[in-house]
């Protein structure tokens, strides 16, 4: 089992931003991403995933630390003020 230390970046944000965020992430050099549908609560109130309220998406990116930092900075400066957004990172071992 050859494993490789990597960074996992989790982004939780509004469904309506899905296409926009994917464009940003790929532009910044990500090799891939995984999305699941989510709902939740935070400083912007409850996002229950009902149509008129909108729901959340949870984006999961495995990449090197520099990539994750670029993504975090870009999303912070462009979307944090106006949209629901939570990001966190953790070290993981990519198995390949």
């Amino acid at each position, binding site marked *: 089992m050859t494993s490789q230390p990597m960074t996992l970046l989790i982004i939780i944000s509004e469904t309506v931003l899905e296409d926009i965020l994917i464009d940003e992430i790929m532009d910044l050099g990500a090799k891939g991403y995984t999305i699941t549908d989510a709902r939740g609560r935070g400083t912007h109130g409850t996002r229950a995933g*009902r149509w*008129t*309220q909108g729901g959340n998406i949870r984006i999961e990116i495995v990449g090197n630390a520099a990539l994750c930092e670029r993504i975090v900075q870009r999303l912070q400066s462009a979307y944090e003020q*106006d*949209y629901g957004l939570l990001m966190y990172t953790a070290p993981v071992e990519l198995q390949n």
Partner: protein
Amino acid sequence: MQFEPVVLFFLLGVFAGLVRSDLKIPGSIYEALSIFLLLAIGLQGGVKLAEFPLVQLLVPALLILAVGALIPLLAFPVLRLLGRMSRADSGSIAAHYGSVSVVTFSVAVALLMQEDIDFEGYMIVFLVLLEIPALVIGVVLARSGSGSAQWGRLAHEVLFGKSILLLAGGLVIGFVAGAEGIKPLDILFFDLFKGILALFLLEMGLVAAGRIAGLRSYGVFLVSFAIITPLLSAILGTLLGWMLGLSVGGTMLLATLYASASYIAAPAAMRIAVPKANPALSIGAALGITFPFNIFLGIPVYLWMAQFLHSFGA
């Protein structure tokens, strides 16, 4: 005053929402219902349009669009000055009230059919046409002075967003296929229409309940705005319809179009085009106040207004 039983499903939904029932229409079902409603309305309009000389529609259409554009233009300064709202919120709310509500329109059509009142079928075309200037005006007002909007993205969102695309697509298919070609689809798209509208209203009630509960936080201004704006807009529509020589039914539908506020297409477009606007305010007003006002009180009143005016001769 005429009463359409389908609105009882809205009340059931509001009740379920207020008592915090676990009833919910799954998201994918809501999506399917709305795809169905938009396509069905488009098809109905297209079939009607095919029986009509298109050129004769040009002048009335331009007039209806021009007068319709007045609504967001007048609403904006009221929101800004009287309501002391931010530029972004004022523009976004103006766009919502300049736009139209497909479900409100459907309830109006259902009432006309129940009361056996004729109407110009091509009014459905304005469900598509009125949306576009309203959103553009709203965004321009919201962003004036604050840097350029992402116009490309907005145009794409509006023109190719699913609401307009399905309405316009249905319109074209109905137009091309005609009443005869559509016949085997009638049972799905026409006969089931009202039943599906009932289910849709149930879900609308569920969601509106949350908005109605938050009513107090909107303040007196927004609540008044959400009731007075549709009334004034409807008067505009009634007068214009009467001047254009529309039938009683058509006049009432035009009033309803002007009076209704969007809570599907507009919110999605505004969230992208005017991110600084608070969606809770615009959706709260449009869905929590104006929508129930229209389906319970507005529509019967607009019908009465049209009948009253037409009693003086068309």
